[in-house]
């Protein structure tokens, strides 16, 4: 029953050949088996959003998916956001607007916001606020996260045109 299954996870374009039990969550596989510890784990039951990653273009809770379900899919984590030394517009905006303090929730917020804005670049301010209610932050009081994401949204829209 605890038999391990060999599979390949593609994270930020790199193939990771691993062997995990079917019950291994994607979050645990990303961290423990692939060594990509940028993705954080808070609650392990879908409440906090710290584990948010982008799978085939969709922002999802990686603690609510099994690793075996992600085989053959394109997984993106916080490690893949920056382009060399140049931060992603969302990361830069979080720095500029003090969108983080301890930083525990930050990878999840970054992947949530980037994932949603790539799908819906013209999302309204109201809907964006609703999206940001998906994840928990115990430090910032959210206001600076909202400011950062709105600023990055404007920046990402500019780069699209």
């Amino acid at each position, binding site marked *: *029953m*605890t038999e391990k299954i060999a599979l390949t996870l593609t994270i930020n374009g790199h193939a990771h050949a691993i062997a995990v*039990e*079917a*019950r291994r*969550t994607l979050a*645990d596989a990303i961290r423990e088996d692939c060594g990509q510890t940028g993705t954080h784990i808070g609650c*392990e*039951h*879908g409440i906090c*959003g710290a584990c*948010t990653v982008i799978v085939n273009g*969709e*922002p*999802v*809770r990686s*603690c*609510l*998916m*099994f690793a*075996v*379900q992600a085989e053959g899919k394109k997984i993106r984590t916080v490690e893949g956001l920056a382009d060399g030394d140049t931060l992603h517009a969302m990361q830069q905006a979080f720095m500029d607007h003090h969108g983080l303090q301890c930083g525990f929730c930050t990878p999840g917020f970054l992947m*949530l916001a980037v*994932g*949603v804005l790539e799908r819906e670049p013209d999302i309204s301010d109201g809907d964006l606020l*609703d*999206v940001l*209610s*998906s*994840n928990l932050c115990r430090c910032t009081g959210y206001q600076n996260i909202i400011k950062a994401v709105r600023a990055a949204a404007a920046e990402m829209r500019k780069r699209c045109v």
Partner: protein
Amino acid sequence: MKPAPFVRHVPRTLQQALAMLSQLAGQDGRILAGGQSLVPIMAFRLAKPAHLIDINEVEGLDRLDSDGKALTIGARVRHAAFHGPVVDNPLAALLTYVARHIAHYPIRMRGTFCGSLAHADPASEWCLTTATLGATMIARSTRGTREIAAKDFFDGIMSTALAEDELLAEVRLPLLAADAKFGFNEFSRRAGDFAMASSLVAYRVVDSKIAEARVGVGGAEPSPRRIAEAEAALNGQPPGDAAFRAAALAASDAVDPLEDHQTNAEYRRDLVRVVVRRALEHSLQ
């Protein structure tokens, strides 16, 4: 907080899925759809299924189309499919409005419409929607196909009429009249939480009077249902404050509210009055 071991099965066709379910249901086998309810429950070890039949690769179950009478929603259709209009009918705007109240964006990317119905949380928005609009559930097993009316489907808290070897393959939601009005409201303490009470209403206005009223209440009783007393208070009345208040009061009188560690029956009854009135007011916006 780690799920117990299980064996994963990955059917590619409906026939394979039904055969696996028939074989494994008796050995503690279950369907894995979006996993947005099942995986948390497994993480808490409240469920330790020995086998999971993962239907995410089954072809054909992503059906989402209309034959002009009803919208058919297959077992792989995610909540997020309703973020935009899915059919040229007022039902589309209703589904979009309701969908955004379900959990959070990333959860809506994976959770399925049919999974919500099979899970049957009393506060589920889709359970309320199907109960209010009179959907038909299509249950399939190796024994055959059954059509189950929404009013016979929900059977108390997290319990349905599905047999353990039955897959909820699709749901048919009747389209609304072209001139139908709808309204929805729910109350929860935090965005994305399960509602403590919710209401969905739909009706037509014929000769300036309400006709064919449907008033559904969710989250307040073990299963969502239509409230005939509230519908009677609306039919034949002009839409407006007097009829809406009368219907809200009738609904709150009619329910037998759940109690939990946060709320007593009196409080929930009052919430029902408020959400029904707000849903009716929303129908005029």
